[in-house]
């Protein structure tokens, strides 16, 4: 069963990113940073890894004069996240009822 756990989600930050993106449309960098409580650099490297896997899509644009980068989960990413959650759930021993 352990094999069904996705290695990409071993990091808490990556799993956290996917959790936030699972329930939101475009979320920007600063919101993610605030929600996850990580540094810019740390977040950027995890996001790059998820982008590499095609789990997230990136949108860069200007809001007023400030550059704004936001992220959204891809279908692949959402599926992988869901499968990973189900795998975690199976690891929890069922209470004897």
């Amino acid at each position: 069963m352990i094999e069904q756990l996705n290695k990409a989600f071993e990091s808490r930050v990556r799993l956290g990113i996917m959790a936030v993106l699972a329930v939101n449309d475009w979320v920007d960098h600063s919101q993610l940073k605030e929600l996850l409580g990580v540094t810019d650099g740390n977040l950027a490297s995890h996001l790059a890894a998820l982008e590499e896997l095609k789990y997230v899509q990136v949108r860069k644009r200007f809001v007023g004069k400030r550059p704004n980068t936001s992220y959204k989960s891809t279908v692949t990413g959402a599926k992988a996240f869901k499968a990973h959650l189900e795998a975690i759930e199976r690891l929890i021993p069922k209470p004897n009822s």
Partner: protein
Amino acid sequence: MQHNDPSQELAHIRGLMERSTRFLSLSGLSGVIAGVVALGGATLARFHINEALAPDTDALTYGTARGEALFTDLRMTLITDAGLVLFVALLGAFWFTWRRSRKTGQYLWDASARRLMLNMLVPLSVGGIFCLALFFYGLPGLVAPATLVFYGLALFNASKYTLDEIRWLGVSELLLGIVALFWLEAGLLFWAIGFGVLHIFYGGLMYLRHERGAEDNA
């Protein structure tokens, strides 16, 4: 290979999903100011009604010619009063929430705020139109309970996108609205309790629970 306790892991994920969808900058002081304004407005309305009814202060009953004649005179005054209360309360609520979102560094108009507004505004606008219709059909006694009921439904509906206290505020408004429906003569009193006292109570509760500690650190 690092494997955390799976149930802790799940709790962490759920917490994140929740925090990222809810609008948590809503300031309790918004509720307190809205409550104070509502109490002021209700007192003003009471004053106008008393003045129009003098000397007998309990004559605003339904189905009587005198009640209807009185009401026609009062209608514009009361609608203006209600409109003013709504405007000042919204302005105050917006200001405190804006201040809090600045303090916490959150966006005032992010996806969670939009979701909250949409879920709040749909039942609320329908309620507003409904109440105006009641006014114009000469059924003012139903307006106070109707505002409480529609406001309660709007809060209950929107509460899944913000602080939990909003759900309880919604439930309280609904109960009060239902009681008020069967006690029309005390409509203004119920309205003052629902929009004044309950707002101050839940607003104060939200402030004490979520903001006071945080402001000390800021």
